């Protein structure tokens, strides 16, 4: 059993943490494109209903002073945004009619 990285109240999401706690958009986009719809659906179904509580938990701390568990939770919600595109509109990992276009995020505010 690996050590928990998310706050205790979010232990149900722990199975997704290793895959989806990612620091940058580049990593999240790559993970999305490398995932199956079944994997994306499973993460979304588990994570989406918890977004409101996750916001509540993270916002107990200042953004630039998040403890590790809240930081991981914030990363997980970042990934839910990425995955929501596939689950809510495309029903496939890549953008419909995006052909082979690429657009790399090369700078972003962190955490």
């Amino acid at each position, binding site marked *: 059993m690996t050590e928990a990285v998310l706050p205790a109240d979010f232990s149900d999401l722990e199975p997704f943490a290793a895959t989806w706690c990612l620091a940058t958009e580049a990593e999240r986009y790559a993970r999305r494109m490398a995932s199956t719809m079944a994997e994306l659906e499973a993460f979304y179904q588990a994570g989406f209903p918890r977004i409101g509580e996750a916001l509540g938990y*993270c916002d107990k701390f200042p953004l630039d002073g998040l403890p590790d568990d809240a930081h991981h939770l914030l990363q997980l919600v970042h990934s839910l945004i990425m995955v929501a595109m596939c689950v809510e509109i495309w029903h496939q990992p890549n953008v419909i*009619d*995006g052909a082979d*276009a690429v*657009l790399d995020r090369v*700078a972003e*505010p962190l955490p």
Partner: protein
Amino acid sequence: MPHFAKPPAGSWTQHYPELGTAPVDYTDSVDPAFYELEKVAIFRRSWLNVGRVEKLPRTGSYFTRELAVLDTSLIIVKGADGKIRAFHNVCRHRGNKLVWNDFPGEESAGVCRQFTCKYHAWRYDLTGKLTFIQQEGEFFGVDKDQYGLKEVACDVWEGFIFINLEPAESLTEYLGDLAKGIEGYPFHEMTSVYTYRAEVGSNWKLFIDAFAEFYHAPVLHHKQAVKNEAEKLVGYGFEALHYELSSPHSMVSSWGGMAPPKDPSMVKPIERALRSGLFGPWDRPAIEGLDPLPPSINPSRSPSWGTDSFEFFPNFTLLFWAPGWYLTYNYWPTAVDRHLFEANLYFVPARSARERLAQELATVTFKEYALQDGNTLEATQSMLASRVVSEFPLNDQEILLRHLHKVVADRVKEYTDAAAR
């Protein structure tokens, strides 16, 4: 049935009779000789945006730009006097590229007290002055004052840094009234930046074309919206609120998504959960300067205003969203059929995870749209290059494209006429 009034001339295009209404010749996007002319007639003598002042926070902060369209690399640096200067990135001793990190072809950034050449250690201060020659006694009376870095005209408008290799007028004269009417927008508050880059296999003007008309939006992007909403949008088609040409620049003003939406079922679940979407976070940042907006923004003062897109000639787009953020596009040609595209999205810094995620959703959504906008470019380029067809009918909602291609043609003609004299 039109939803928004057009000028008395009957159309936006005819309101500017110099544009004509004839089909537009796209040979300008495939002809290598024409591209070479664009480089000298346009890019070498226009004010070009190379970044923002926030990238140079301190004395000695610098960044380099690799600009194939100018056949040069530039160093942009902030001096001890607070002034931002631009120099060709070439050492005066024997021409080594002065500033680079791991690879000379890649852009770099940092902070330094002076620039030291990697080759023989000649040094230049932040104003470009040559301050040190290694083994100076071996030279034959080199006057250091004559061997400073080659400076390029550089000026700042509202925090945007511009350079110009051969300026004929000042930056503010060049940007004109359209820009004047934007002054005062709280750019300085919006310092949280998301940057995107792509190498695109098309002429630079084709991506501007793709962003400068919204005629495509209800069609190309219709799968982005929830189904009922998408059908409604295709039915409406697209009409802008207002167009304005202030040659060589131009702008389009558009209605746009209410944030928050009137009916929450109009938007995707993730948008409801995070109170954000393509148009930006629903909750506006608590800063001064957004109400009232400067006069060039939402010029028709429409209550259903959503976004304005300004095309500053030749390759800089400045786009404002009603919920209080903005973005920029820069299109840097590298060949007749290639360019580097850069997009920057600017927000007031998030104070909480909730605000950060609202910005992330807007930014991720932007990319989903931009991937669709970018998908057609390489295919279009290859078909234009076939030259099976070269003239294309542009409609009234494509007036900014008509204007761009005309200004490009006019500037190239002016240049070749002058050269022939």
